[in-house]
Every structure is written in structure tokens, then in C-alpha cells.
């Protein structure tokens, strides 16, 4: 392996680091402060998204900086946590009437009906979610199918930032996921246990032999 240091351009700063470093590690190794826009460092939180252009490439890509290795001449700009451009506040317990569910979802996210089908959300999604399809299904009222599409969403908000119609797709996706358990899911074993607890049928024995420490301590 080549051990010559590599220089990249990060937001106008020249950053020199050892090969095999991720973009974030390189910034740190070069002595720069970088404490915002870093999260799990494991590729699941979406904090460290960046736009890069490799040397001699015309392609500009969106990547996660914690898992993208540096290459000589690479240009990098971090995409900071941008303020939301639109906001769709709701309280989950205000969704009460299942007959009104679809219209209430649409009232909460009125822009969703204006989707212009640009596909920008799909190309921005680091998880490869069919965001646009999910939005369209939600508008049609296929809430279950829409929710399933957003199952692996990490809420990085990239689709919300890119959406030219201010739909907030990932938040719509989360709402349609939330309403189902909130209103409908009542698992049998959980209900049974809660009833037992309510009736005081489960007592507690601190001094049960199995809880004893004597032979262990």
C-alpha cells in the first residue's frame, strides 16, 4: 500500500492526511476542528453527509463522510444540518378516527399532493428508498404500503432538503408509519400482561432464591 500522504480540499481548506482515512478522519488528522455534523460514525445517522467531486471527474456525488475514503485532489463540502424549510407539526394522539385517517394525513402534509415527480428525493436518499413512490402511495391513501417503503429511513432529511415542493417526504413517511401502531396495533401477549399487572396478579419476590446473591458473592 502506498503510504504517501494525500491532500484534499475540504471547504476551501487544504487537508493532508494518510491514505486509508475517511474524510472525517482526514480532517481530524490534519488538526482541524470538526465537531458538528458528526454522529454515529457508523453510517446510520446521516449527520456527516457531504458533496464531493473527485479529481478530474465531472461527477458530483453525495456521500457519507465517515465511510468515504480520501483520494488525492478530492473536493469536499459538508452538507450541514439545514433548518427545515417547511414544517408539518402534529400530535400523534390527534389521529383518532380511522375513517378520517387518510384525509387527516393529507391535511397534515398538504404539499404531498403536489409532487412533481422529479425523482430528486430518490436520487438523494442514501438508503435507496423509493421516496417518491412512498409519497404518492400516502397521498392515494395506501398508508400501510407507504409506511413499508420508509421502513429503513434514517431520517437524514436529505429528501426534505431537496424537495422543491416542500413535501418533507421522510416526515410524511414517518407519520404514516406511526399512525398504524398508534391506532391499530394491540398485541395479544402485551394486552394480557398489562391486564395482569392492572389486576395486581403479578407480585414480586425480592428474596426469591434465584435472586439471591449469597452463593455468588
Amino acid at each position, binding site marked *: 500500500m502506498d503510504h504517501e500522504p494525500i491532500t484534499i*480540499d475540504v471547504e476551501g481548506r487544504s487537508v493532508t492526511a494518510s491514505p486509508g482515512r475517511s474524510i472525517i478522519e482526514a480532517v481530524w488528522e490534519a488538526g482541524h476542528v470538526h465537531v458538528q455534523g458528526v454522529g454515529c460514525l457508523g453510517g446510520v445517522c446521516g449527520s456527516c453527509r457531504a458533496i464531493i467531486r473527485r479529481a478530474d471527474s465531472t461527477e458530483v456525488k453525495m456521500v457519507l463522510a465517515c465511510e468515504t475514503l480520501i483520494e488525492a485532489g478530492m473536493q469536499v463540502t459538508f452538507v450541514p444540518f439545514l433548518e427545515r424549510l417547511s414544517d408539518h407539526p402534529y400530535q400523534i394522539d390527534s389521529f383518532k378516527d380511522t375513517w378520517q385517517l387518510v384525509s387527516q394525513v393529507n391535511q397534515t402534509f398538504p404539499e404531498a399532493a403536489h409532487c412533481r415527480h422529479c425523482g*430528486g428525493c430518490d436520487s438523494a436518499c442514501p438508503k435507496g428508498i423509493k421516496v417518491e413512490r412512498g409519497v404518492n402511495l400516502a397521498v392515494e391513501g395506501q398508508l400501510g404500503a407507504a409506511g413499508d417503503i420508509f421502513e429503513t429511513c434514517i431520517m437524514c432529511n436529505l429528501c426534505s432538503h431537496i424537495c422543491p415542493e416542500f413535501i418533507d417526504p421522510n416526515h410524511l413517511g414517518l407519520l404514516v408509519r406511526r399512525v398504524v401502531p398508534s391506532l391499530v396495533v394491540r398485541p395479544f401477549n402485551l394486552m394480557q400482561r398489562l391486564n395482569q399487572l392492572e389486576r395486581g396478579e403479578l407480585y414480586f419476590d425480592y428474596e426469591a432464591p434465584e435472586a439471591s446473591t449469597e452463593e455468588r458473592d
Partner: protein
Amino acid sequence: MTNQLNQVLLHENNQVGSNLEAWLANGGGEGLQNALAAPEAIIKTIEDSNLRGMGGAGFPTYRKWQFVLAEKDAEVKYLICNGNEDEPGTFKDRLLLEKTPNQIIEGALITALATGVNHLILYINPHEEKAVEAARQAVAQWEAHPLFASVADSLGRPLTLRVFLSSGLYIGGEETAAISSVEGGFPFPKKKPPYPAQHGVHGQPTLINNVETLAHVTHIVKHGAEWYRNLGVGQASGTKIYSLSGDVLHPGVYELPMGTSLRDLVFEYGGGMLAGKEFKAVFTGGPSNTILTSEDLDVALDWDSVQERRSRLGTGAMIVISEGTGIVKRVTEYVDFFADSSCGQCPPCKIGTRQISKVLRKIDTGRGRRAELDHLVNLGKLLPGSGRCALVDGAVTVLNSSLDKFKSEYEAHLIDR
């Protein structure tokens, strides 16, 4: 000097609104007659006139036409007369459409004869209601006029002429976006190739010309190429409509000989700077080009001369700013415009323009540091070419140019200057 104002397109005799009879009575229709007499000669005349696209690109009109003419086998060809006009500082097309729709339609018919297009679409920004109304009335009159039938006969194919309301979005003015729009969809720019001349509206050869370009065609074919060339100053040909705005006494639309100097436009016709302030800069050709400064006041406002200063004539918009106006704030506004206009298809464009805007705003509101300035330079290098259309490039051009010419003004805003 003022006798050079509004000689052709905006001549008072031509400003008859949608009234076709009045247009024909004032000498309209002659160009079309000439074209009908010798359709195959039109392109040569346009070539000799040096006419170039007035919508911003400045591409030689005759060459665009040749590409479409070359598609001999196509049964159907389209002409989109582009009057979408939604860029800050440009407000000439709406005036042409409102005051002189007939010369645009006549130009379109001449174009049809020259290139074989048979579906003519007046593609107009719906926010310009007067322009839409005038165009509609004019179209109705043309359709009923024998000249229209003559053109159809000459083409040997069915001829249609209609007004199409664009989305009113800036992006809809881009050629391929206009095609998407006419096809009934959202005005998304498309990847090139294929080029519109081969594969445009519904896959058919399509020509897209700015409405001002078409208006010029009418007069060129009427008076001849040499007459047209001689209208210009020096090497430049014809006239140009400049949209003058910003910190000048008399903002407005000025048709002047191509090649009129920036100084004359601002100080003679525009009445000089507002409130006696010093001239500082001009956003040439709208907000997506290189900024010119007081050193450039003597530049001739024609394609080549402006290009020699590494800027572009664009639509002919001249947004003038005085010493009292902040460059950073202005550039921020324009980048915001691009960010809002970005259609969403290409993540680097949408997010990149927003990012520039965010960093600019930080500097403009006194929260920026040297690192932010460096970041702008980085964005200016990273983003160009990252979209399928040139929108992001426009934002980057104005950013880079402002950094190049007014670095000290940026620096003055920094906390750690």
C-alpha cells in the same frame, strides 16, 4: 443620440398591440411575403444578418435552424416561441408580446417556411396576463388571415399556431424544460443529447427560439441582411433590447443598436445613477453571468465585446448597482433565486445552491469568518457541471465573479477580517 432608440422592434408604428390590421397597415406582412416568395433563401439571409439567439445563449440563429431543416423526414416539427421570461432583471419579452405580438407571430411563420416546422407554440409565462391576452387575440386574427393559409400551403402540411401557458417557473425557460412543459409535464430539464433539433416535443424535431429573436427575423427578411447589419455599432449587427434596472434614474426597456456602450446605456438613456451615487457594477445579462465593473463602462454591449470581458450579454438584462448597494446581499438574493428555482432532479444543484446561499447569508449578516469565504471558493470549484441543466452553473458564475471582483467587500463583512 436618442434618435437611435427604438428604431425597429419597439418602433412606435409597430406597437399596435394585437391588432393585425394595424400591423399590416404599418408595413407588417412584407417580410412574410418575401419569405413566401423564396423560402429557401431565408436561412442564408439570417446567416448574413449575424442574428443570434436573444434568450441568453447567443447561439447563431441560422445554425439552429439548419439542424431542424436537416430533419427532412419528419412529418411533424415544432417551434417553441419562448416567452417564459422569469429571470430577475429581464422584462423585455413580456413587453414585446403585449405591444407587438404580430411581429413575433410573423417571425414564427417565416421560421416555419425556412425550417419546415408546422406546429408553432407561443410559450408564455402565465403571470404576464396582458402578454397572454394580446398573444391570444393576435393568434385568432392570424389563423383567420389568408397569409396563414398561404404558409400552410407552402409547407404542404397542416399548420397550427397556439398559445401555451408555461408553468411560470424560471426553470421552464430552459430549452429541454420547455419541451417537457409542452408535452404536458413539469418543466424538468432533460439530458442532452439527444438534442431538441432531433428529438424534441414528443420525440419530434423541435426548434426553440426566444420571442425577441423571432421579432428580429420579421424585419431582417423584410429589409435584408445588410440593412440589419448596418443598424449595429462597429462590427455588431442589428439592434438589441436591453432591460435596464437597478440603481439608475430611468429603469426600463431600451432597444438600441447592438454594440451601444454600457456607459451610454446607463448614463445617456438610463439618466445616470440614482441619487448621484457612483457606478459600482452591473450584473450583465441577468444574475447568472460575470459581473462587470466601472472599468468596463466602455464595453460595447454586443455578444463578442462582452465575451471578451469574460462575461455574457445574455438576455440583455443590465442590473446596475451603485456604491450604496451591497454586492454580497445582491449575490445572496440571486443565489436564493436559483436555489428556489432548482427543480429538484439533481441533488448537488438543489443542495449546492442552498449551501452557497446559506454561507453567503452568514457572511452578509456579519456572522461569517475567513473559513466561510474559503468555503465559498471551494463551492465555486466543486459545483459547476453537477446538474443536468446549467442552473447551478449560473449560480456559481455569479458567485465566483463577485468573489473575483469584490473580494474586499466580502472580507469587510468577516468577523475575523
